[in-house]
């Protein structure tokens, strides 16, 4: 028995997407280089890519020319942060362009580029969310200074599933004339996003969180008015000069269809997945001494992060090895350090370390949730019974 409850780390490819990608891989006329527009094979591949660009753009209320294909959300985050920071730091308003605002609970794909920018002379303010993981617009408003050039905040936290009110945060940025980057790796396709209405200037997204292939993502870059950004990968002028490299036709086509399906089936998926999550949470609560990490209601349908009192997290994860779950961000697996995200929410090191993330998705079933609960119900009491009492 092995049950996949790690959809926040990566989703299985939807069979419809896989079929479309296989068609793309096996159709001779789609094998050309999409940049080779002088012949039929190149143009056919390019047409398939442009169709996918439309699908991705429509899913976030953007124009197709604002979509830059990348290798995934991590690259998109890097391009957004380094690209915008370096472009604006070098201009006439260079003095103004040295302050960036983000939050302590961001993904490492944002935090590590910001650390590098700090070493390069930028000043970064890291907002502390409240105990539910929410960054409030008033906090952001207070943190913005005349030197602030960029705000980078995630839409849905990958560990807790907490949803930020990006429309309200974006309104503050727009009001103060500051660029707004949103890491939407966990939300694009899953939540309603309208980059215009939400005042978003840059948005990172990826295919493998929405039942598309790994290795492909996109960065939305505002076009009206045009946003200055310095390319980080050069050598060919692809993607409007912002990201060089031959485009991966099958990946992009798969991404486009995955996004289209995610948007079309969003309401049905979310309702069904939320019901499964509540079934899981209800079952875990019956075991006792568990706490929900993150805001109780302002959270994504598929993510459930739970603190288990009286048990060590690594041992619980090991005892539950028939469940594909996570002790934190997938990218940090292997480390026995407590989650910095949970610590930022005020959890003790011990409780953060005793927390597990369950994430459900399109292919999760009631039977899987019940089987997971059965296993947890067997292993959790066993480990708790073994544990030394707090006061011995």
């Amino acid at each position, binding site marked *: 028995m092995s049950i996949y409850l790690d959809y926040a780390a990566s989703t299985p490819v939807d069979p419809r997407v896989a079929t479309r990608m296989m068609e793309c891989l096996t159709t001779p006329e789609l094998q050309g280089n999409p940049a080779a527009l002088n012949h039929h094979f190149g143009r056919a591949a390019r047409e398939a890519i442009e169709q996918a660009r439309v699908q991705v753009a429509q899913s976030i209320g953007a124009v197709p020319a604002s979509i830059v294909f990348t290798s995934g959300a991590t690259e998109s985050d890097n391009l957004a942060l380094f690209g915008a920071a370096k472009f604006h730091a070098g201009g006439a308003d260079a003095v103004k362009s040295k302050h960036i605002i983000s939050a302590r609970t961001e993904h490492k794909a944002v935090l590590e580029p910001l650390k590098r920018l700090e070493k390069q002379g930028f000043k970064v303010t890291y907002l502390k969310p409240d105990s539910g993981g929410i960054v409030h617009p008033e906090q952001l408003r207070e943190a913005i200074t005349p030197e602030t050039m960029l705000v980078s905040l995630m839409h849905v936290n990958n560990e807790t599933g907490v949803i930020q009110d990006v429309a309200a945060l974006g309104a503050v940025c727009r009001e103060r004339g500051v660029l707004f980057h949103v890491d939407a790796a966990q939300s694009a396709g899953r939540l309603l996003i309208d980059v215009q209405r939400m005042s978003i200037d840059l948005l990172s997204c990826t295919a493998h969180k929405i039942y598309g292939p790994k290795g492909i993502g996109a960065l939305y870059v505002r076009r009206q008015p045009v946003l200055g950004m310095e390319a980080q990968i050069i050598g060919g002028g692809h993607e409007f000069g912002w990201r060089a490299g031959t485009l991966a036709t099958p990946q992009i086509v798969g991404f486009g269809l995955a996004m289209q399906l995610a948007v079309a089936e969003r309401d049905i998926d979310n309702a069904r997945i939320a019901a499964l999550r509540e079934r899981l949470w209800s079952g875990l609560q019956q075991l006792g001494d568990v706490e929900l990490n993150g805001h109780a209601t302002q959270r994504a349908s598929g993510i459930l992060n739970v603190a288990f009192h009286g*048990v*060590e997290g*690594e*041992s619980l994860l*090991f*005892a539950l090895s028939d469940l594909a779950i996570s002790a934190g961000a997938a990218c940090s*697996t*292997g480390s*026995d350090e407590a989650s910095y995200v949970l610590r930022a929410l005020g959890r*003790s*090191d*011990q409780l953060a*370390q005793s927390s597990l993330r369950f994430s459900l998705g399109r292919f999760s079933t009631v039977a899987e949730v019940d089987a997971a609960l059965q296993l947890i119900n067997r292993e959790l009491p066993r480990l708790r*019974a*073994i*544990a*030394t*009492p*707090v006061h*011995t």
Partner: protein
Amino acid sequence: MSAELQISTDFAYSDRVRELFNNLHHAGMLSVDQLAGVVVKRAAVGLREHGACVTIWITLHDAKLQAVRYQAYGCPYFLAACESLAQWLQGRDRAELSQWRWRDVETALAIPANKRSRLLLLDEAINRLAND
């Protein structure tokens, strides 16, 4: 390919750790019946806040260890090491306690260096049991 160029995809625990973790036969406390008429020694080391702690009970009869039990909080390596230690202790003379070597357990269980502090906790517990 040389060893340093090989990319490991194995994040799993060793088979011995798995075996011990799934069979923590000595976990628990000693019952009143077990304690009747025998000398009981107890050692408690570590803190939950630091990620690992253990309480070990042993009973002695004519300086020979009889029952061994422990309660432990920690990672799979630590729990497996506790069980390994309990198995080693069973039936030994008290004078033999000083012969326990944490490095032998580290090797036998393939415990990574960053978990070494857990084994040092057990070393401290053994010293207390031996010298109390």
